[in-house]
């Protein structure tokens, strides 16, 4: 019996990325149109609205960029770890603890001037993220504890920590008994660059550029990739795996924590347990869409932000939340699937034996 299998291409399709992107998007939109028709909505109207809400004018675009900032940083955090074959599933928790640290600094520095306070909060957020990743990093480096599990579990702990703080020591004294953190001081709000895009955009671009170059161009980055491919080779080449694991995971946490600090100063009015808004998990998808390359994260984050903003906007014209959610997932999945086809091709393969080598590391479609 002949069945289709995915075979890795010797060379990825040249210039295939934009093509795959377009095809994937088109297929997703067609599937989505079927879904919308079944649900009783007009596909043309829905798509036009999604586009106009995310890219329609400068204000719409600024809202999309606002959302792309934490998505890009979370995606970068995941991609850095993945460069070395490590999985940081805990960006969500690192964002939350970063935001928590920043909120703590805001309480101490209530009287500080804006720039000083904002800088302290953003740096503090990064340090918070680093600290939140330190435990899993050390456990992985020195005793080989699976970082997927530890980083994942720390997400829940970060939520509980915030819940404890806003129920107890940080409970808003001016909140009339409500369970909430105190309002952030006015001067801690990150200024806007244009419309609703705040200065965090510049920080995100700078961090993406620096870390992107570090990974792709520096000897440090090269060592990372070697270590990610083969620990034995790396050790033979004199690279300290322990130290690499430690620094990479902590750097990953730092970037996620930075997202937390920026989100708190850029969008929040007070610390909440959902201030991370799922960006840490979405970052895993962003990184996967960018094929784990820091360089691709920015573009994907903008797309992802646009899909989320557009998906939200259509609810106001009567599209149900469920349909909107499935539509968002379809678009992202369409682009992911198309991305795979740049790197793999579909081949009709004979069963066992024949072509065993090429099918050994692929899956049947």
């Amino acid at each position, binding site marked *: 019996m002949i069945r289709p299998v995915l075979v890795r291409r010797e060379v990825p399709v040249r210039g295939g990325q934009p093509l795959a992107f377009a095809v994937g998007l088109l297929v997703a939109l067609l599937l989505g149109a079927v879904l919308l028709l079944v649900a009783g909505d007009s596909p043309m109207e829905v798509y036009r609205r999604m586009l106009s809400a995310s890219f329609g004018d400068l204000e719409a675009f600024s809202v999309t960029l606002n959302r792309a900032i934490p998505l890009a940083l979370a995606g970068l955090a995941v991609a850095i770890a993945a460069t070395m074959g490590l999985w940081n599933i805990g960006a969500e928790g690192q964002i939350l603890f970063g935001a928590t640290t920043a909120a703590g600094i805001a309480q101490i520095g209530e009287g500080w001037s804006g720039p000083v306070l904002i800088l302290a909060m953003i740096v503090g957020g990064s340090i918070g993220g680093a600290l939140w990743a330190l435990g899993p990093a050390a456990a992985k480096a020195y005793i080989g504890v699976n970082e997927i599990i530890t980083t994942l579990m720390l997400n829940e702990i970060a939520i509980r920590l915030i819940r404890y703080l806003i129920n107890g020591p940080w409970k808003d004294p001016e909140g009339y008994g409500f369970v909430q953190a105190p309002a952030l001081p006015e001067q801690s709000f990150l200024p806007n660059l244009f419309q609703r895009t705040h200065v965090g955009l510049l920080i995100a671009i700078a961090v993406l550029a620096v870390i992107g170059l570090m990974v792709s161009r520096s000897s440090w980055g090269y060592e990372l990739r070697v270590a990610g491919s083969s620990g034995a080779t790396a050790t033979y080449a004199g690279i300290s795996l322990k130290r690499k694991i430690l620094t990479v995971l902590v750097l990953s946490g730092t970037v996620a924590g930075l997202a937390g600090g920026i989100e708190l100063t850029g969008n929040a009015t007070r610390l909440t347990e959902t201030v991370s*808004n799922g960006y840490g998990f979405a970052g895993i998808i962003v990184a996967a869409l960018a094929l784990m390359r820091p360089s691709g994260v920015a573009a994907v984050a903008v797309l992802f932000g646009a899909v989320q903003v557009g998906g939200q906007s259509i609810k106001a014209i009567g599209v149900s939340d469920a349909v909107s959610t499935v539509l*968002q997932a379809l678009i992202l999945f369409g682009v992911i699937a198309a991305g795979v086809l740049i790197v793999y091709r579909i081949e009709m393969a004979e069963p066992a034996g024949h072509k065993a080598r090429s099918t050994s*590391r692929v899956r049947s479609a």
Partner: protein
Amino acid sequence: MKSTKSTKALLRLLALLMAFVMIAAACGDDDGDDGSADDGDSAVTDDAGNDMADDDMVDEGMDEDDMAEDDMAEDDMAEDDMAEDDMADDFSAAFLYISPIGEAGWTWAHDQGRLHAEEATGIPTFFVDSVNDGSPADIEAAIRTLVADGHDVIIGTSFGYMDTMEAMAAEFPDVVFEHVSGYKANETNFGNTFGKIYQPRYLTGMIAGAATETNQIGYVAAFPIPEVARGINAFTLGAQRVNPDVEVVVQWTSTWFDPAIEGDAADALLEGGADVIAMHQDTTSAGLAAEAAGARWVSYNSDMSEFAPDAYLASAIWNWGPRYAEIISSAADGSYVPGFYWGGYEDGIVDIGSIAADVDADIVAQVEDIRQQMIDGTFAVFSGPLFAQDGTQLLAEGEVMDPGMLLGEAFFVQGVVGDIG
């Protein structure tokens, strides 16, 4: 190199699978079901006490003639190329909900209010559901979309929308913003609405107090804030009115909307000896737990009798419609004045739902009698002699609790078992 490639391929495969799973997770998070407070406390400011008394609502006398022309809508629509629907000249209102509407509960009750207002005023209404109230970015994006669509009134029905609505009200001075269950307002276009749900809770307490055989009633409660405490206290006083030996045991859940946790809390109370369950939660879970255990149940937000027909006794329900009609029509004719609305039985914003058929006719008659006194404004739930949980006297004979104490109620009355944090 061979192992490099296969590892990477494996990684990529894993990444894709992961991505698929995580899409669901990430999008699910947007729903904010697990989120923080949604139907919290009522209006509380220094002058809230004054406002609530004279803020009667009159929804009959509105004027629909003036609502057609709204100069702002034009401006907003100008930069909005997507909605060339004929909205530009029409007055319209939009609602922000924290969860899907569903078939019962907090959001459902608000949506019933929306539908009522639409019918009463003839002004079209829209809604956006599942807006995470812990994420200002989400709230802001939703509000900006609604303003760009040319809506003239935006009503947010979850506590966590408060700060963002305040900021948006400042940015869009020609749109009326009304927030439900918060404590902020401005002078021009940002008001707050809530109601005295503790009044019908007192009545449901009477029914529950008469129904319990173990003299222990379990109360599944969200957060230790004044609004919830006030409900628990009123419920307890009502129960004590017909059954002086009754105890009300409180179990905190730290969530407004979590079916699993609410059900577990009810189970724990039932195992502890309670045979009637009351709740300050948004789902029907506590009722299902009571139904399964053969116990009785008092629901909240809306009449939930169909979900646990054997357990159901009565319910304390919201009737938002008249208030929403008042807000929308006054905004349309330009007479809207923001403030702290805190309506009660006399305004019709709260009521008791259906009463189970097997409730003693004498109790039903007593409930009906007190209900009428509440409608007439002659019955005060919190009046002396009133004792705190630890036995200290709060109000002397003949005294009525002043609004300030009522609004900041961070204590339990005698007969409540549990800590208020």
